[in-house]
């Protein structure tokens, strides 16, 4: 009984809290912007500190991967290549610009290049996580 009262008392507060921050515009914009440019989703939501840290981490990891002569996947031969390409695509414009600029190795030829390839793939996966986090902030699922 007391629980029911608590629920009914809390409901209007939650509703008014949600109404105090009206959600306007395209709800998927932070998700798409965050995918294309690391940290951009959080910048759009004025989360400057979080966005800067995410951008620095993802860009740093991607740059280290390239510096280690990591491979940027361009063609798929088997299922593992497909997963690698999916991870690379998570980097958004970073992947596209790097491909166009001819950065990244075509084949892994030194030991560190294998690490570099993983750094690039993981940077893409982390970027997807960050973009989804921006979407959750936008929808109010996270504060």
């Amino acid at each position, binding site marked *: 009984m007391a629980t029911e009262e608590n629920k009914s008392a809390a409901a209007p507060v939650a509703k008014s809290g949600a109404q105090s921050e009206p959600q306007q515009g395209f709800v998927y914009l932070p998700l798409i912007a965050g995918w294309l440019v690391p940290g951009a989703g959080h910048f759009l939501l004025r989360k400057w500190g979080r966005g800067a840290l*995410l951008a620095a981490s993802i860009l740093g*990891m991607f740059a280290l991967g390239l510096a280690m002569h990591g491979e940027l996947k361009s063609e798929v031969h088997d299922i593992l290549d497909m997963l690698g390409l999916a991870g690379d695509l998570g980097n958004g414009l970073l992947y596209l610009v790097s491909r166009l600029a001819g950065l990244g190795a075509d084949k892994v030829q030194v030991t560190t290049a294998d*690490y570099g390839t993983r750094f690039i793939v993981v940077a893409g996966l982390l970027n997807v*996580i960050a973009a989804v*986090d921006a979407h959750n902030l936008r929808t109010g699922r996270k504060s």
Partner: protein
Amino acid sequence: MTHFAAVVLFAFFASIVFGITQRETPRGMVRYGAYCFVLFVGSAIALSWIMYLIAR
């Protein structure tokens, strides 16, 4: 770059993203980020020793 430096850098960047995305408060983010970093590096060291002992 040594293997250990690569591990530490990987753990550092991944932990920052995990901390920010998986927790809501700044204090929680720092704590969870540090927790992930220690787990990343600690498990890498532990697994390295296990592989070293198996190989002998």
